[in-house]
């Protein structure tokens, strides 16, 4: 890294003398010096000293500004620090093809977020959010509308600057200087695919491939379109595509750069069941290739089906973990007993079974037992019921869905807000 100082348009590079450091610098230098030279020529040809003086004065102004600014070293020109982990590929690898290493516990996290906060004036979009996402993991980010999911994605995607906290994205610290380096290694598919509707599918993808400076563009576009089953529609104008097909083009675009982390913001929003299933299959295939997927959604069955772990956000992070862990944390294990007739002495019966912590009867002949461990409690409970002469219609473990967990947590927030 070369030391440099000076105003933004002329920077002194030690050992290299004076010269503009950036293309804008060259532009300003030419814009200032060219008129000065023209003035000098006119003055010389017309033998008019006024023109000569004006030309010299202009050069003097330029030199003075450059010299004054040269005393202040610039900190913000430091090159982006090298990624802490997972060094970036020199050129993006050939798209959807190469298999990645499977998720491994010893691999560094693809995303590490600590105390991240984003505030717009007096309103928090999200606050003090901390979590990590392992390489190759499919991570679900759940929350109601306005919870801050999209703002979190935009912040991690370097579109918004965090108000507080820190994050490492694809091994690169999230700082203003590293924005470009991070964007090379990630892809974001917003909720609306955002296609140039007047252009064809191929023209759309060519544009984005050029912005990522992908070498073998046509092969990469072909691979991406094949991955989303759209190879035959490459020459179609995007305006002529259905919403589902546009969403798939958006996914193909996200795959173009072979991202280390793929952010999908509500990828199945507004899609029909067939198109939704295709998106699911695509996400599963990405998981198979070891791509880290950060999926924001409020379709809970989607999160339950696709995600290794989920986080529930409602401005603050409410919970992070595997869906079964969250269920266990929010709900106690329970057994549900249905009998033909109400039991004669349920108190005595359930108290005699080890492992039953408490019970309730929401309806006659319907009993919900909170137990320590359903599998160990079920056999003695069955024996006790038979011994008591009960006609047992069913005995089952109560299964809470991720939706139950989600609704429970959000309901707590609503109650807290009402208090």
């Amino acid at each position, binding site marked *: 890294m070369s030391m440099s100082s000076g105003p933004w348009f002329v920077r002194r590079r030690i050992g290299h003398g004076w010269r503009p450091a950036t293309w804008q610098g060259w532009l300003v230098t030419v814009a200032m010096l060219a*008129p000065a030279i023209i003035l000098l020529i006119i003055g010389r040809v017309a033998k008019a000293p006024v023109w000569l003086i004006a030309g010299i004065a202009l050069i003097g102004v330029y030199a003075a500004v450059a010299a004054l600014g040269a005393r202040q070293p610039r900190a913000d020109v430091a090159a982006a620090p090298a990624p802490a982990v997972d060094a970036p590929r020199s050129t993006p690898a050939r798209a959807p093809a190469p298999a990645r290493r499977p998720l491994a516990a010893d691999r560094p996290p693809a995303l590490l977020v600590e105390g991240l906060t984003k505030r717009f004036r007096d309103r928090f979009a999200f606050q003090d959010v901390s979590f990590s996402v392992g390489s190759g993991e499919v991570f679900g980010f759940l929350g109601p509308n306005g919870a801050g999911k999209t703002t979190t994605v*935009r912040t991690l995607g370097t579109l918004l600057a965090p108000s507080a906290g820190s994050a490492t994205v694809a091994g690169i610290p999230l700082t*203003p200087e590293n924005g470009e380096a991070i964007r090379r290694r990630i892809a974001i598919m917003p909720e609306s695919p955002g*296609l140039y509707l007047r252009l064809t599918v191929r023209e759309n993808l060519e544009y984005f491939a050029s912005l990522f400076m992908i070498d073998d563009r046509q092969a990469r576009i072909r691979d991406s379109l094949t991955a989303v089953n759209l190879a035959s529609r490459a020459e179609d104008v995007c305006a002529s595509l259905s919403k589902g097909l546009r969403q798939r083009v958006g996914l193909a675009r996200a795959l173009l750069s072979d991202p280390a982390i793929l952010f999908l913001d509500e990828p199945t929003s507004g899609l029909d069941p067939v198109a939704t299933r295709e998106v699911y299959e695509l996400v599963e295939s990405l998981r198979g290739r070891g791509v880290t997927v950060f999926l924001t959604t409020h379709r809970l069955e989607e999160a339950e089906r696709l995600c290794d772990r989920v986080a529930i956000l409602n401005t603050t992070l409410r919970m992070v973990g595997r869906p079964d862990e969250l269920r266990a944390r929010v709900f106690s294990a329970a057994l549900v007993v249905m009998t033909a007739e109400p039991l004669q002495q349920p108190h005595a019966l359930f108290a005699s079974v080890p492992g039953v912590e408490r019970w309730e009867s929401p309806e006659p002949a319907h009993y919900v037992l909170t137990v320590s461990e359903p599998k160990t409690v079920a056999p003695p409970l069955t024996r006790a019921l038979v011994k008591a002469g009960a006609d047992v219609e069913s005995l089952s473990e109560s299964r809470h869905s991720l939706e139950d967990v989600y609704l429970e947590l959000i309901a707590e927030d609503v109650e807290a807000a009402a208090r």
Partner: protein
Amino acid sequence: MSFSLARTGAVLRKELREFRHNRLIVGTMAFLPLLFIVIPISDLFRHAAPAVVHAQTGAALLLLLVTSVIIPATISAYSVVGEREQGTLEPVLTTPVRREELLVGKAAAALIPAVAVAYLIFIVVAVAVRIGADQTVVNDIWQAPTFLTHALFAPLLSAWSIWACIAISTRSSDVRVAQQLGTLASLPPLGIVALITFQVIQPSVTVAIILACVLAALDAAGWMLVGRLFDRERLISGARPVRSTP
């Protein structure tokens, strides 16, 4: 991570492709030049007293330069707010493209057709005058300061119009509003040209160069202003950034 001409070229190509499919832009580029050829020629081919001819020539030359302002205004006012309206701004901003690359690509896409059209209609009018107009008119138009004024001012006025319109486009939420305000904001520098064409300032090579320098300085200021406004956070959220986003 330096400025990439390849990415700038990609933005330029995409913009030109989009214009090709946009009826409003194609219509503006086709209709305006026709209008700005027909009106001056019909004026300049009328036989009038020499004093009137000077005024007519001035007006015609000014009219020719108006295309340099209106065509880029139509194109560049759409450049940011249009992308925001169709939802393409966010995907573009999530790529590694730098703001300077995006701005220069978009500006070049407006500048190139605008300057090409401005030069073309000037050449057509000048040749037509040479062939069929009165000698007084020919003498007024076929002189070095006139050609120099047009050669210098067409790109400089276009550049001003582009920066003004992109600046408005970054803050606007509606394409039509951006185009109307952008066109209005583009007009003041024409006042400088009007002073020359109506001979309030006596036209000469020196005056043309000095005023061109003034316009170039205005363009540089416009570029700096747009560079500041073109912040990812501001474009996405509409909020003033807490600190500069990359």
